[in-house]
C-alpha cells in the first residue's frame, strides 16, 4: 500500500500515541508455525487508541497491509510531519470512532517495523535472522495477534478491519478464531491471490534477489540491496494505482522539462514519481521483510487452508457479521474477488453487506480520505455496537 497520510484537514486527531511492544513464546515454548518451524521469542509492536470499556466489548482490531505498521493514527511527537497511516479513518468522531471504540493495531510478524522478522536478532546466533527466519503465513501473523489480544485481556473483538493483506488477516481471524470475532470488514482484498497478483510479487522479489547487495539475505552488516528494493516498490506502486488514476495524476506530463532529454533520465512525471517512491521506501523498509510478507500473501488460500479447497466450507466456520468493500478501479484485487467472498458467505446464510465503491484510485483507494468509506464503516460499526449492547 502507498502512503497518503497527511494532517487531518479539520485537525481532528487521537493526539499523541505511543508504540508499545509485547514479547511472548520465549523458548522453550516457542510459537509453532504453519510450516511446523518454531519461532521464539516473538515480539509484536502495537498501539492502542481510545479506552477499553469496563466490559471489554468495544475493541476493534485494525490489520495493516504489506508495508504498514502499528502506527495507524495520531502522532508520536508534536514535531511529526505526518500522522499514522489511517489517520483519516481512526480518531474521535471518525469512521472508527476512538471516543467509542478501543482501537488496536499491531505490526505483523515478518515485518521490520517493531515486530519480529528477518531483520531481528536470532537468539541462536546473535546475528540478524536473514533467511534463517522461518517462512511465516497469514495464519501465523493472526496467531501472533491472538496472543496479543489475550495479553490485553480481550475475549471477543467487536470488529476486525483491514485492507489488502490486512483484509486477508481479517478473513483468517474469522475462520481461525470465530468465537472471538463479532464482526469483520475485509476491504479491497481477496481469499487468494490471482496469477496476476503472484506475478507482480514475483517480479518484485526477483528484483530484490538480483541485487548483488542482497547476498542471500545476509546484508545486515553491509550495504543494503537498496536498488532491488526500490524497483520492487516501484512495481508495487503500479499495481496500487490504476490506468485511470495514472492518467489523471501524471498523463504524459514531463518532469521539470519541456522536451525529452534523449537519454535515460526520468523524463515523465510518472517515472520521477516511481523513482521517488522507491528511494523513500528503502529508508524505512527491509528487503527481506518484503520477500517474506509477499510470499505469505501469495501462499494465502482461505479455501485450501480451512475448507479442503472450498471457500464456502472455510467460511462456514465464521460467525461474524460482515461488511465487504471493493473499489471499481482496483485491478490488483478486482471486485469479482470480493463478490466471491460475498457469495461464499451467502451460501452459508451469513449476514453480509457489500458495497463496491466507485473510485478512480485503484487498489489504494481504501487509504485515501473519502466520505463514502468513512460513513459505511461508521454505520456498520454503530449497528454492531448497538446489537452487542442490546
Amino acid at each position: 500500500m502507498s502512503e497518503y497520510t497527511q494532517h487531518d484537514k479539520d485537525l481532528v486527531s487521537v493526539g499523541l500515541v505511543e508504540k508499545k511492544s509485547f514479547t511472548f513464546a520465549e523458548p522453550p515454548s516457542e510459537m509453532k508455525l504453519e510450516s511446523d518451524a518454531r519461532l521464539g521469542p516473538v515480539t509484536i509492536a502495537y498501539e492502542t487508541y481510545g479506552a477499553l470499556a469496563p466490559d471489554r466489548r468495544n475493541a476493534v482490531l485494525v490489520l495493516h497491509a504489506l508495508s504498514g505498521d502499528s502506527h495507524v493514527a495520531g502522532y508520536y511527537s508534536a514535531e511529526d510531519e505526518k500522522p499514522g497511516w489511517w489517520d483519516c479513518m481512526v480518531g474521535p468522531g471518525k469512521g472508527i470512532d476512538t471516543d467509542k471504540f478501543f482501537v488496536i493495531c499491531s505490526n505483523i510478524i515478518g515485518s521490520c517495523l517493531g515486530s519480529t522478522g528477518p531483520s531481528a536478532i536470532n537468539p541462536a546466533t546473535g546475528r540478524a535472522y536473514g533467511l534463517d527466519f522461518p517462512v511465516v503465513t497469514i495464519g501465523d501473523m493472526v496467531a501472533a495477534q491472538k496472543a496479543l489480544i489475550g495479553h490485553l485481556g480481550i475475549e471477543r473483538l467487536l470488529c476486525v478491519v483491514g485492507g489488502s493483506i490486512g483484509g486477508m488477516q481479517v478473513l483468517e481471524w474469522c475462520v481461525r478464531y470465530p468465537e472471538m470475532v463479532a464482526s469483520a470488514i475485509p476491504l479491497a482484498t481477496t481469499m487468494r491471490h490471482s496469477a496476476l497478483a503472484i506475478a507482480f510479487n514475483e517480479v518484485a522479489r526477483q528484483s530484490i534477489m538480483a541485487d548483488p547487495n542482497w547476498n542471500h539475505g545476509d546484508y545486515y552488516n553491509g550495504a543494503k540491496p537498496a536498488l532491488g528494493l526500490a524497483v520492487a516498490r516501484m512495481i508495487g506502486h503500479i499495481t496500487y494505482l490504476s490506468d485511470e488514476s495514472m492518467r489523471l495524476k501524471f498523463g504524459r506530463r514531463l518532469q521539470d522539462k519541456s522536451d525529452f532529454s534523449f537519454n535515460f533520465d526520468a523524463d515523465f512525471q510518472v517515472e520521477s514519481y516511481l523513482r521517488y517512491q522507491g528511494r523513500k521506501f528503502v529508508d524505512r523498509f527491509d528487503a527481506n521483510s518484503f520477500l517474506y510478507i509477499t510470499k505469505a500473501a501469495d501462499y494465502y488460500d482461505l479455501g485450501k487452508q480451512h475448507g479442503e479447497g472450498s471457500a464456502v466450507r472455510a467460511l462456514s466456520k465464521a460467525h461474524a457479521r460482515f461488511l465487504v468493500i471493493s473499489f471499481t478501479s482496483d485491478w490488483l484485487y478486482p471486485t469479482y474477488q470480493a463478490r466471491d467472498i460475498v457469495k461464499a458467505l451467502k451460501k452459508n446464510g451469513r449476514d453480509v453487506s457489500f458495497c463496491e465503491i466507485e473510485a478512480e484510485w485503484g487498489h489504494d483507494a481504501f487509504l485515501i480520505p473519502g466520505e463514502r468509506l468513512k460513513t459505511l464503516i461508521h454505520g456498520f460499526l454503530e449497528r454492531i455496537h448497538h446489537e452487542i449492547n442490546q
Partner: protein
Amino acid sequence: MKSTNSRMRYDLQIIASWIEPGSHVVDLGCGEGDLLQHLITHKGVHGTGIERNEEKVAACIEKGLSVLQGDINEEVHDYPEGRFDYVILSQTLQQVYEPAVLIRAMLRIGRKGIVSFPNFSHWDIRRQVFFTGFAPVSRQLPFQWFNTPNIRVITLKDFRKFVQDVGFKILKEAAINTHSQDRHGSIVQFLPNLRATYGIFMIGKDYL
C-alpha cells in the same frame, strides 16, 4: 439504529402488515431501506436487502442495515434453500427480464414471496390509449416508451394467471389506490383490475 420512518410508502405499509414478527426477510431492490428499517424496528425481523445502486446501498449501510450491492436476478441465487420466511419484490417486477426465473428463485430461497407492481389495466391507462392513441404515461409509470425502465406491462389479472402458470399459489392479495411515492392510499374492493393503481400479492408453493 436511527428511528424509523413510520410514514413510508403506502404499498410498503400494506406489505409490512403482512409480515409475521421475528421472521427472516430479504427485500429485493430495497432502495434506501425504508421497509427493512420499519420491519426491523416494529416487527423485530431479521432483514437483509439487495440493491443495485451504490448511493442507495451506502445509505442503507450507513443507517445500520445489512444490504448488499448487486443485481437481484443474480444475487437471489446464492442463498441456501428456505433461508428466508419472506422474499419481497416491491415495484420492481415490471423491470425484470425473466420474471418466471426470478419468481422461482424467490420461492426457492424463501417460504413466501411478496410482489407488488403498478396495475397496467387501471382505467386512466385504458383511457389514454383509447382517446389519445399514445402510449400511456401515468404517475405510477411516468416514462415515455423510449426511456422507460419498465419493460413489462402487467395487470392484476395477468399476474394471477402467471402465478398459476409457473405453478405457485396466491396466498393473499390487495389492490390499492395510491401514487408511486405516496404515504396515503386505500384498498380497492370493487373492480380492482380497473380501479387499483397497484397490486400486492403474497405467493407460495402449492403445498403450503
